């Protein structure tokens, strides 16, 4: 069984936000307006945040669901709408979510977003939506899924071709587009994977590591 993880090299990251746009289009995340943004209701699964990372202050860091091995959000969910799946992805079952927002409060990274209103797109734009990803209704919490639908599609494809899933078969949208090649995704339990090697680097750190949430998004600090 794989244990999926993501390494982000902050030395290579240029803060271009291509990952933010790729994620929005891939996952049918609705657009905001100045009004909704001002109310703190910007819908985005990845966001660039200014953080004081080890060795650097004011680092621009892409922040998404950290897919913790000990996720605080799953502990508080009364309906098991969010849970840690066997492959280490913190999943979100939208029809089960009752919108209590316990998980958004429990998440120390503030990366779970609540649909305060019904997501809307102009009619002309509905055909551009990814048919592999359901649109979340009003009153439901959503977040990064490591593009889980891509994993399912890749697995189907590999099965149809009669072979095992190869590392390059499953890549989240953010990783695929990253122009600085700062993001590496893969199986953290595979000792031969690039992601496992980078996660073991001396530059590796986990965001808010002291909380004991054991994130599977691992950052590589800037500098020597």
């Amino acid at each position, binding site marked *: 069984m794989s244990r999926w993880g993501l390494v982000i*090299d902050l*030395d*290579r990251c*240029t*803060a*271009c*936000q*291509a990952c*933010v*746009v*790729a994620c*929005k*289009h*891939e996952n049918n995340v609705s*657009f*905001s*307006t*100045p009004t909704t*943004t001002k109310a703190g209701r*910007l819908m*985005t699964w990845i*966001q*660039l*945040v*200014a953080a004081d990372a080890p060795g650097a202050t*004011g680092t*621009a*860091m892409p922040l998404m669901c950290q897919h913790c091995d000990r996720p605080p959000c799953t502990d508080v969910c009364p309906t098991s709408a969010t849970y840690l799946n066997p492959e280490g992805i913190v999943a979100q079952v939208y029809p089960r979510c009752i919108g209590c927002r316990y998980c958004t409060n429990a998440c120390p990274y503030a990366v779970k977003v609540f649909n305060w209103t019904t997501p809307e797109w*102009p*009619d*002309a*734009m509905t*055909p*551009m*939506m*990814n*048919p592999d990803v359901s649109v979340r209704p009003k009153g439901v919490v959503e977040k990064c899924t490591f593009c889980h639908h891509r994993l399912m599609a890749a697995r189907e494809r590999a099965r149809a071709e009669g072979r095992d899933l190869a590392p390059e078969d499953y890549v989240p*949208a953010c990783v*695929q*587009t*990253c*122009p*600085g*090649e*700062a993001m590496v995704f893969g199986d953290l339990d595979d000792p031969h994977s690039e992601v496992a090697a980078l996660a073991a680097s001396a530059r590796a750190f986990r965001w808010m590591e002291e909380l004991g949430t054991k994130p599977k998004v691992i950052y590589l600090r800037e*500098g*020597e």
Partner: protein
Amino acid sequence: MSPTSFNRRDFLVYGGATVAGITLGQVGRRWLSRADERAGAWHEQAVETWATSVCRECPAACGLRVRLMDRTPVKLEGNPVCPVSRGRLCAKGQAALEAYFDPDRLVGPARRVGRREEGRFEPIAWADAIQILTTHLGRARADRRGVLALAAEEQGALADAWTQFWTPLGARVAWTLAAGSARLAPRMGALVGAGGEPIFDVERASYVLSFGAPLVEDWLGPVWTQRSYGRFRRGGGRSRGRFVHLEGRRSLTARKADEWLPVPADRQAFLAYGIASVLLREDRVDRDLLAELGGNLADFEREVVARYTPDNVAVATGVPVVTLLRLARELAATPQPLVVVAADARPDLVDAVLALNALVGALDRPGGVYESAVARTAPEPISAASELSRLASGAKPPAVVALRDASPLRAASSPHDLMPLFEHCDFVVSFSPYLDEAASVADLLLPTHTPLESWHALAPPTTDTLQKVACAKPVAVARLDTRGLVDVLGATAAKLGGDVAAGYAWRADADVVKAELDRLWGLRHGTLYANVFQTEWVQQLETGGWWVAPAPSREEFGEAALRAGGWMDPFFASGAIRRRLAQRGLTLVPPAMPIEAAAANAGGLQPAVVPASFQRAADQPAASREFPLRLTLFTPACANQMGSPNQPVLFELLGQPEGSPWRVWAELAPETARAAGLDQGSPVRITSAAGSIDAVAMVVERMPLDTVAVAYVPALKPGGRWAQLMTADVRSLWGRSDPTGPMNVRVTQV
């Protein structure tokens, strides 16, 4: 419940429930069955395919792979075999999908009704639209009143087809100049002869000293530059590259640099020559190599060493002597140093940077500067900005202005002055598909296809040693009543008749692209876009004098090139610069600027705790007291300068990571902010003599104390639904004056 307690009431309840269950169950099953059928039918129809196209959000021409569901594009990815993007895309490239689906795109041809200020249009048929254009062009030609054709700069067959149409009409064809390496070619030519463009091998450098080059943003080409930066920092098997950056404001690039020196653009040449002076004074250059290259080194050395003393440079730039000495010594001590410069830098700065590269031995070596294989023979293109400036300053107006896109107007000095700019022009026609600046001033709208609906044949700007032509056919059906640009020009030429029709052979975009593919096949070198391994292999073959045809026939080559996304020639004979220098020698351009005067007038660059303007307000002239801060304009990399102005996702990226999406922001030094009573995130009003805008204050450490830097995001009142939401356009602070000129403002809390 025991059987004895089952009374009549219970019987009725359970009986009723059973009947209701059966009935509703039937209904439910039928409903579910229908829903399932619909869902199943949808799944059966949705067929996933992938096609290649070319991104046109900026001039870089990155290759695209478009995911189509039932022939409708749903996602854009980078084309992995495209040598420009190598499978990656920037934020604007990803957002290009929104341009295709823009709900406020122009739906078809239309002509203006009433006066331009009224903004009213009526739809017309294409045939009528072309007739109107033909009439106006014919009249302009007969009256010899001139035509001005404006477009975003690009190279290649389709750009040539645009020029070919206007040339017989005697039109001036001007371009919104791209900030690419072509802008540096004349200065490169002055240094080494010939007219090749410089190629900066950032990826393999060990140390990069940047004079204002936005290395992590959109320098020369956004995806290429970001990939190069990533590999420079953490290239396989090499130690981490060190990066020092000079810029007047703390940009994203400045944030990523190991060291940022806040030196304004007009002072950077002093520092570059100062470093050259230290290198020569301390004899930290490879004298043997320089002697081999020959040229005017001795004269250059005499001039620079005598005038650019560290003390003079320190006073003129505000950079301490110790830092100047250290930078020069670091450059000399590192194995593969490289000095880079912004493409739109002043010529004297480019000269200084190229001279520095020559001194540190960076010419023609890995991690240094190469020269493009093909020298540009065409004259420097006419700048659209200067044409518009001429118009604004009262030059004789052309009868007809043709706008292929909105880029010239988006770069114009003031959004409020677009209408008066064309006041005395009889007729303005826009070929842009969007509701943009061009549409707001045009009398006739001829919306052409968006990039995903278009044919492509263009040469991406030079970023590496490969020659490239990006080609693609439409990947999506035209969503609205739009046409290909050449389709429209061809039909117009045919109607105009005479030498225009005779000289314009094209009738459709597809013809131009197919002719370009035929030309490429006839070259008998190069190959289709290919992965890195295949590219390397072809390069080795061509170096050995071999060429393997990438397809068995001309037709199959065309089809294969359109599938791959383009053609490239990886052959590159390195050492061209040194071979030429062996014959003519280096021509180092000595500094023309009087540093002594600059040093004497540089009091404002000295560090101060509180801006001089606040500290000594009573001593300042009245104008300085009223507008005490110098305004600097910068363009965020996510602001679209040539495509659709109505992409909501790009507005969400503004002001990040400081948390200011959808808003224009103003950067101030902490001391300046404190003196004005501002905190991080305070709403502020920036006022100049010409107007005011509202923004959000962003406090940035080490910003020059007398400066406020404001983001330029195009605001467009008559634009699409999202473009309208951006209301603060910093250009309005300049009024009718040139935004590259100085401007002083006042910043107050709202």
